[in-house]
């Protein structure tokens, strides 16, 4: 049976779905990276993803327009981000706890809306696979990398984009400054509040897209609580990636590939107990985190509310 695992088609399948599965993590974690780089910890990502996921699904279900669904999810995520920004920046709330509050709100609201507006589980036609012209014909690699849907491509394009913004633009410099030493940034005229509002709302929007990618691109269904902790994993991935987009990419890929592996193991009937298999990605992530933790440094102002000392 293990030999089934090593056949080429199965390996290609594992890699292709691993690449696909990383999509929501990438969107959510890159969004969270922006926020954390500016010093804000947002644990409400899971709630934003759930509400975005429902919003995208419901709008697509009702209008048949996938892009409208995606746009709605972005709007929902941005609104939740706005609320989070107000609570964090203006009210100086404890960020970890307010994040949990937003998580519960998103969880409950998505369930509430699902129960009142839909009632039963439906499926839709999600984003179709887009085969990139020449590249997707390469045997093996073509199917893995170049025959995915639009949202998957978007997620991977986001990584170099985020790296560029954070490291090569003035905005990125401001974000990093605010995250390391907001007092110094403030004294130089950078509006800490405005930068944090931007990163938090951006994070919320990306979390909304992450949720949408689940319901209208990857799974093409909405079920209550369907993210099952992916938002929290995304937050962990930011730490895992040492607050760098490349690191986040690595973490997301590691996690998703192992996840894909364990899914296929179960499908192929290989006799590993399913519970152990499900644990695998999480255990691996913890192990790698422990191994690398001493070498990374968080943004110094992370999760500390900024109050101007007059």
């Amino acid at each position: 049976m293990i030999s089934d695992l090593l056949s080429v088609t199965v390996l290609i399948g594992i890699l292709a779905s691993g690449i696909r599965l990383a999509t929501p993590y990438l969107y959510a974690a890159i969004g969270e990276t922006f926020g954390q780089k500016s010093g804000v910890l947002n644990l409400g990502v899971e709630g934003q993803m759930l509400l975005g996921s429902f919003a995208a699904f419901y709008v697509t279900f009702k209008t048949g327009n996938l892009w409208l669904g995606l746009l709605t999810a972005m709007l929902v995520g941005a609104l939740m981000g706005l609320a989070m920004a107000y609570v964090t920046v203006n009210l100086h709330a404890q960020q970890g706890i307010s994040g949990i509050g937003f998580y519960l709100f998103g969880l409950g609201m998505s369930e509430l809306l699902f129960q009142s507006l839909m009632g039963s589980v439906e499926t839709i036609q999600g984003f179709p696979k887009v085969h990139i012209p020449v590249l997707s014909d390469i045997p093996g690699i073509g199917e893995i990398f170049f025959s995915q849907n639009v949202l998957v491509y978007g997620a991977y394009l986001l990584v170099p984009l985020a790296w560029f913004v954070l490291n090569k633009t003035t905005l990125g410099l401001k974000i990093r400054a605010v995250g390391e030493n907001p007092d110094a940034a403030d004294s130089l005229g950078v509006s800490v509040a405005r930068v944090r509002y931007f990163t938090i709302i951006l994070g919320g929007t990306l979390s909304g897209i992450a949720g949408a990618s689940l319901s209208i691109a990857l799974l093409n269904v909405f079920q209550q609580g369907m993210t099952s902790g992916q938002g929290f994993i995304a937050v962990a991935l930011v730490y895992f990636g040492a607050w760098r987009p490349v690191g986040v990419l690595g973490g997301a890929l590691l996690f998703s590939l192992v996840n894909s592996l364990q899914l296929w193991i179960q499908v192929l009937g290989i006799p590993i107990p399913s519970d152990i298999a499900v644990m695998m990605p999480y255990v691996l992530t913890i192990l790698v985190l422990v191994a690398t933790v001493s070498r990374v440094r968080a943004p110094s102002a992370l999760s500390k509310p900024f109050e101007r000392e007059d």
Partner: protein
Amino acid sequence: MGQNPHASRYAGIKVPRYMVLALLLSGAFAGLAGAVQVFGVNYRMITDGSASGFTGGAGFNGIVAALFGQLHPIWSIPASILFGALLVGANKMQRMTQVPSALVTVLNGLVVIFVVSSEIWRRRRQRRRMAVAGSDETPPPPVDKKPQQAEAGA
């Protein structure tokens, strides 16, 4: 330690050791909660493969109840009773009035957000109270009061 880790370290309290101890204790309590749920409530272990399994989200609700009790151990008792009642009532509400039980989760979230957001007003009231108390001991020169009031109002 929660109020001021630096001051605690200066006073000789080994901060990392007690942080680990506090985390150990809270983990132990959480494990106890799980055990109570299995032994005392359900009489068996129900797993449906979801993230919250048989706890019914009790872990997160625990955070909410603790906050509602202002993080004071004694107050967490009535707070937990309240939230337990809310959760049971939610299912009953759904059966009787067709209002979805998910409403309670939304309420949980809103409670957390509002409790955490209102901390700022409490801190400002504390600061004002301390400023007033300080000035009771010595006759306050009028010059000193204005900067304190300006800071509290900022």
